[in-house]
């Protein structure tokens, strides 16, 4: 191969890889990006009932209702608005009242959020950045819960 051909081959190769990668990314990104929403966004009607979203906030105090089945009800709040969540499955170990939580699912017609994933975390002191952010936006400071359990 001459130098020119070689350069063409290199550029061609890189374009192919980049092209394939970008195509795959765009193709897969069509339906698979999840938006993070706060309870305020939902009350404001920014969320429709078909789209999967991530809902995050704090688990409201005394809101966890454990039933005699695998279904659990609880409320997620950003201290401005509160959304009721229903989840069928086993909750992660670090799921507690007055702690940040991220859930994934869709909003039901009745305004209850149906979660099929409740994200666990590895560290008690850890707060998902989105949750921290959305709490900051709404209130400017953390209020409400007594923090006894998480000490």
């Amino acid at each position, binding site marked *: 191969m001459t130098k020119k051909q*070689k350069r063409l081959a290199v550029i061609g190769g890189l374009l192919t890889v980049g092209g394939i990668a970008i195509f795959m990314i765009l193709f*897969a990104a069509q339906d698979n990006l999840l*938006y993070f929403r706060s309870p305020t966004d939902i009350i404001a009607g920014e969320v429709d009932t078909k789209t999967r979203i991530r809902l995050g906030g704090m688990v409201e105090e005394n809101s966890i209702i454990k039933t005699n089945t695998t279904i659990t009800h609880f409320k997620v709040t950003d201290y401005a608005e509160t959304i009721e969540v229903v989840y069928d499955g*086993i909750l992660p170990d670090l799921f507690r009242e007055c702690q940040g939580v991220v859930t994934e699912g869709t909003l039901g017609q009745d305004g209850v959020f149906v979660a099929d994933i409740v994200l*666990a975390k590895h560290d008690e002191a850890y707060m998902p*950045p989105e949750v921290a952010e959305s709490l900051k936006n709404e209130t400017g400071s953390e209020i409400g819960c007594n923090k006894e359990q998480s000490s």
Partner: protein
Amino acid sequence: MIAEAGHFALILALFFTLMQSIYPFIGYFKNDQNAMMSARANAVVQFMLIAFAFAMLITSFATSDFSVALVQKHSYSLQPLIYKISATWGNHEGSMLMWVFILTLFSALVAIFGVKLPLTLQSLVLVVQGWISFTFTAFIIFTSNPFIRLSPAPIEGRDLNPILQDFGLAIHPPLLYCGYVGFSVAFSFAVAALIEGKIDNIWARWVRPWTLLAWMFLTLGIAMGSWWAYYELGWGGFWFWDPVENASFLPWLTGTALLHSAIVMEKRNALKSWTILLAIITFSMSLLGTFLVRSGVLTSVHAFASDPTRGIVILCILLVTVAGALSLYVFRAKLLTSQTLFQPISREGGLIINNLLLTAIMIVVFVGTLYPMIIEAINGSRISVGAPFFNLASAPLAAMLAIIIPFGPMLAWKRADLLGAAQRLAIIAFLAFCLGLLLMWRLDNDTPVLASFGLILGIWLIFGAIYELLYRAKLGSVPVNIFFKRLFGLPRSAFGAAFGHMGVGISVIGVIAVTSFQHEVITVMEPEKSVDVGGYEVRFDGVSDRAGPNYHEEYGQFIISKGGSQIAALEPSKRTYRASRQNTTEAGILHLGLSQLFITLGDPKNDGAYAVTLFYKPLVSLIWGGAAVMVLGGFLSLMDRRLRIGISKRVKKMPDSAQKPSMSEA
């Protein structure tokens, strides 16, 4: 005194790293042999100092010296000794010290085993290692000092995060870090080659074993992390496409590409600048991983509470390293171009396709991982990119890679016969197809089409790897005794490649089997009731209590039987740790050949009933078994005579006849 001794050694090490960064470098430009030589001794001394500091920190943890702030924060007097020790790296400060410890260990190894390298190359490599060591040692001392004392000393510690109190996680960080940091050697070799402006196949021969070693550790580390997440987090998943997991996967992908491109460079003296670029990218990805884990910028189930200022410092280190190395690359890489004839249908052509696909997968994972961060920076909306994206975007690329892997070793260097290779592999493809169908029939009757395709691909990889060895030993065309002689006479690296590829196939089968055929039951079980999971009858016999060394646990008793006869009992439990009051779930796992029955205990319900999750996971052990086979392959390759560290020069001087087998090496 122990912590102070460690602290002192650390500060002393900082001076040595500074000296190593500068003095031999000046020596290189002045052509001063002694100055260049000094890098060797310096690297060894530096390693001993850091090792001492690390040992002192471990001692503080092992003896539960709660006057050291870090120990107080992450340990507890009643913790078993092994978790007291592993608590040393179960936190930010200690893990960064371990990072530098492994870095200086690799520098010392280069100093000791690299005495046969050209002095200029060796000293430059050590200088670059010195730059990295200096930066991170300074980072530890100024932002993350592990030796700070508390006064007055508390009498009890706050306990290690309970989910880290596990054997898998005790050894996962050291393995992973050996992988991450091991790639620094390839990086330093690359930067040294760019500074020198010359590179040859001896360079590739030297870089390969180090890359291979790092790759083996990274593979083990990732597999161990995945196995830990599987049994300890209680979700029964083995990979979550979580940013932190992706962060370890990125250097693995580019590292794998690097292993293969270094072969082309060694054998064909081609792909020089590409190999250099891969070495730079791979270590940059390792640094990116460190940054993502340590800064907490991304929402991750693996993220730990962290101090944002440290994140910024690591980000700066990352940017300077990447920008510095890449600009050096831009200015100097043209000195390295080679004039080699290149045919697309050849072994090297196959390896290039391998590299292109691995890079494409890397780009997909990279973009998916960082996209949320970029979007938030641009328009403030917060999104997350989850498993569906990564599966959809990377699976087709991975499948293409799996299809071409068995072709690679069948192609000759320079100019190959693709049709011939295809004809020879046709029988393998047919066998894989039949066996895939058989396996599907065993697993489930109505199989999804894609899953069956995946299973066939896995078998194709395994058979392809075996066939390659048999073919090279000329099975069928020579008498049996000669065949065996030839088989065992094949270079170890041929076995290495075969096992490496076989391991990929084994993992593929495990992943496909679990994702497509697992049987999951989430239910509330009353005592004495049974459920059927994957053909096994599981009876719940209620829950009891017992005390562990530093926790209390409730454990469920489950009796597993098949066809009326009892085979085993499982005791999944929920633990509450005394010091931190945190809970963990300990899954009960029953190995049934390569498949597993997996039970976790949930919340208590009325009348002694409990929420329970039960999984039957067919062939799940293959996922990690495959990784073990890959590492075995790496080990065999490393044991190859021609790759053994220090032997490169002698091989070169051998007469032609002795060099012959290396021409056909995989």
